[in-house]
């Protein structure tokens, strides 16, 4: 490390490249969900955010709002994690759609629902990381996903801590999706250590 670029420098120098990573990864993942559920989904222009770790808890909305977080480790040529976050109404709509239930059904998630959410996580992460892998020629494999339903700040403390180990700020590539029935979600890619540098150098960019 040392003479390679810091996260802050990467953010300043390559914002378009980071946005493109979000675009391709999230684009592929969104298509995967849309196909699985037979929905038409829209995706925002990815937002590359360089934020102080102290502010991560409110990065996607109110700190105490209830969200569903699906988290996976990212392994092989790069390390880190990725998270897919859904607000509660969206998570219910997604699961209802997948389980072919009434769209208004909103009882607490049971074991089956939770494994459906995990499966959504698997598909999304697989599609996102495949795209990233195809773009960079790096081998990138996801671990088994884990689901948590809790306050946004508590869930986001996990990436905050992960970034907090090496930096006072976090570099998030955040992409928002929505659809005609109001499913709203966020992808957050969190490479750790020198993984950002590896991604950029594999794209032929000097780091």
């Amino acid at each position: 490390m040392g003479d390679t670029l810091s996260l802050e420098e990467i953010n300043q120098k390559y914002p378009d490249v980071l946005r493109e990573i979000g675009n391709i990864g999230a684009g592929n993942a969104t298509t995967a969900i849309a196909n699985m559920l037979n929905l038409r989904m829209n995706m925002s222009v990815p937002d590359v955010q360089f934020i102080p770790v102290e502010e991560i808890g409110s990065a996607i909305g109110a700190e105490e709002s209830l969200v569903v977080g699906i988290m996976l480790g990212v392994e092989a040529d790069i390390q880190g994690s990725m998270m897919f976050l859904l607000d509660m109404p969206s998570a219910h709509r997604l699961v209802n759609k997948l389980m072919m239930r009434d769209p208004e059904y909103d009882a607490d998630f049971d074991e089956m629902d939770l494994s459906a959410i995990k499966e959504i996580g698997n598909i999304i992460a697989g599609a996102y990381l495949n795209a990233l892998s195809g773009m960079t020629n790096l081998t990138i494999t996801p671990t088994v996903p884990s689901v948590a339903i809790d306050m946004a700040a508590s869930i986001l403390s996990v990436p905050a801590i992960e970034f907090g180990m090496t930096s006072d700020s976090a570099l998030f590539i955040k992409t928002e999706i929505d659809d005609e029935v109001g499913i709203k979600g966020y992808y957050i890619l969190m490479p750790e250590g020198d993984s950002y540098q590896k991604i950029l150098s594999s794209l032929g960019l000097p780091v």
Partner: protein
Amino acid sequence: MGQMIKVGMADLKVCKAPDNLTTIGLGSCIGIAMYDPVTKVTGLAHIMLPDSTAIRANSNIAKFADTGIKKLLDDMIKAGASKTRIKAKIAGGAKMFDVGTSNLINVGERNAIASKETLRKLGIKLIAEDTGKNFGRTVEIYSENGDFLIKAVGRESYKI
């Protein structure tokens, strides 16, 4: 009626009764509440990581158990608290996800251990704790009586 003052992530604050302190959504982080029952000087720190010496990005001392708790104690003494009377309560340190890249393995547990160790070294008595498990916690410390209220999703609030 006092104010409820908010402490952010990697942050610490001191107040006096009738004011009280809160921090929202502790996940793997730890909330360390300390109070002096006589002067009613109260402090709350929201630390993220166990050890400032293990990490390069350590300029924010409130981010770490070792440096954050020490600073909280110093600030409380400056505000009129007596070290011999100060008592501590801690909460948080959950394992939010059952997955961890190498870095994140048991960081909640390590935060709890480091917080207790720092309190012990500083000679501050830990009288209650609610750490571990897999859920987030919002905490409130009341200066008047040292009650430490813990709120979690889908659970009744409880005091320790």
